[in-house]
């Protein structure tokens, strides 16, 4: 029987900062999105203070100062590199991993003969903490949905959780909030509650055909997954706050030309998703690997992260960056079987535009936001959108509070005395 383990880093960006700055342990820490716009990562202490995920920084700047919150600009080169280290370590536990986002991966445990997985899960957690300094949570289940649920429970308990036992599932799922299920957002859960479905058990036990009719095929699949039947492909549910576009190649690819063509397709797909979400992206991470199962092939697995000087939704710019990255990763003589990219640091266009205009005069920011809304409303949504796209000024995105790129730049290494 195939089991899935979901490994997820706790407050990943903050944890990366802490790995290189241990004095941040136990303190409230936040990391900001591109151009220091919004809060994109919070430590447990910052969450306790009431700082919300996605809050515009200008709104809580004073609060952070008063409460001695450590504030950092995002450092995607560092986060991308740390992510790659963690994925490399996970492959040592299980050759078949599916990287889901910059800080999450599913381990596909096929043919593992363990009866008691608790030691295995704890080993993963301890090894990653020791080797990289990053704390992770591990959840185990017979399907990805149950593994995700287990991971959520792991975060609030000892850091590992095994949800394979059917008897244990009965009690746990009856107390598990539906909005926390993979594939069920807050909007969908509100609708489900109207049908008297308040927890995961009630969803699992509801009539699949009725659910399919009223809520769609994806929600019906969640029911099957809760019953232990794996049926949701990984790329059908996007991770939060990121866009992933990748594919395994049907036949091994060996030339740079073919790789550039593939990555261009993935870039175009991702850029389209980005625009559909009305967002801009601040960084891109590209990865490339050989087929782990072909032991006769020399193995290679690598990734690189590139931060855009100005966040963008422009396909040609994203494409250009993706091709540049794949060229950087390419080595002659390898048989590659998978490539892909992640668009990171997503910000809604409205907030991004507001940022760019308001940076000069924070006092007038509310008035500017109102004015912009009025213009958009009066003259049509595209008006201010075009305006921002046209302003490709040398406005370098603000990274004032960014830590050094300790693991990717010779000029920015940690210095000891």
């Amino acid at each position, binding site marked *: 029987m195939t089991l899935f383990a979901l490994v997820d880093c706790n407050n990943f960006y903050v944890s990366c900062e802490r790995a290189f700055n241990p004095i941040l342990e136990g303190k409230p820490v936040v990391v900001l999105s591109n151009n220091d716009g919004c809060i994109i990562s919070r430590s447990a202490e910052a969450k306790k203070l009431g700082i919300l995920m996605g809050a515009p920084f200008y709104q809580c700047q004073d609060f952070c100062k008063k409460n001695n919150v450590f504030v950092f600009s995002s450092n995607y080169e560092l986060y991308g590199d740390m992510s790659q280290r963690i994925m490399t370590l996970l492959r040592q536990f299980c050759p078949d991993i599916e990287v889901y986002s910059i800080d999450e991966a599913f381990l596909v445990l096929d043919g593992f003969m363990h009866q008691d997985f608790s030691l295995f899960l704890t080993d993963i957690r301890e090894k990653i903490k020791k080797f990289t*300094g990053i704390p992770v949570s591990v959840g185990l289940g017979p399907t990805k949905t149950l593994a995700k649920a287990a991971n959520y429970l792991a975060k609030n308990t000892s850091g590992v959780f095994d949800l394979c036992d059917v008897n244990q599932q009965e009690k746990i799922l009856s107390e598990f909030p539906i909005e926390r299920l993979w594939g069920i957002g807050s909007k969908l859960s509100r609708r489900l509650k109207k049908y008297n479905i308040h927890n995961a058990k009630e969803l699992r036990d509801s009539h699949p055909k009725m659910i399919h009719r009223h809520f769609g095929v994806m929600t019906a699949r969640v029911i099957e997954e809760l019953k232990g039947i794996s049926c949701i492909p990984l790329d059908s549910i996007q991770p939060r706050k990121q866009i992933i576009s990748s594919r395994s190649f049907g036949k091994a690819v060996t030339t740079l030309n073919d790789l550039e063509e593939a990555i261009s397709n993935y870039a175009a797909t991702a850029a389209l998703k980005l625009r559909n979400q009305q967002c801009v992206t601040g960084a891109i991470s590209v990865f490339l690997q050989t087929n782990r199962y072909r032991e006769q092939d020399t193995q290679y697995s690598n990734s690189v992260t590139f931060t855009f000087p100005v966040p963008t939704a422009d396909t040609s710019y994203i494409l250009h960056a993706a091709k540049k990255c794949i060229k950087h990763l390419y080595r002659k003589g390898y048989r590659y079987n998978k490539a892909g990219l992640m668009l990171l640091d997503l910000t809604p266009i409205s907030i991004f535009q507001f940022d760019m205009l308001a940076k000069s005069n924070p006092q007038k920011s509310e008035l500017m936001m109102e004015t912009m809304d009025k213009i958009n409303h009066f003259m049509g949504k595209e008006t201010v959108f075009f305006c921002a796209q046209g302003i490709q000024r040398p406005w370098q995105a603000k990274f004032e509070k960014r830590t050094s790129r300790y693991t990717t730049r010779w000029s920015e290494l940690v210095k000891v*005395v």
Partner: protein
Amino acid sequence: MHLPLYLSKVSAGFPSPAEDYLADTLDLSRHLIAHPAATFIIRAKEQSLIGIFDDDILIVDKSIKPICGKIVFVSIEDQFLIKRLHKKLNGKPILQSDYCAAIEVNNEIYILGVVIYVIHPV
């Protein structure tokens, strides 16, 4: 990474005992770094231990257990330091330096890894 090179072409005839191993180009990072995912590179600043000079590159491996005699990479308050790990007679761990007083290890000190190589330009 480098691909292995055969020393000589396969041919008919009696094989020579010297021809039965694969040579490799000398890849320094593969040679020095056993655990790439757990290995970090830092730079020495000023002298704190004999043999380690200002601007030297230090290779730190977080997977190695910090035991007595090892040079460790530590964080004390907001400073990063390298020290030699030792034990006092009463068994308590201390951090030694060649140029200043030893420090007793406590909760405020984080040992972040073991220094495995020093690269010093000559």
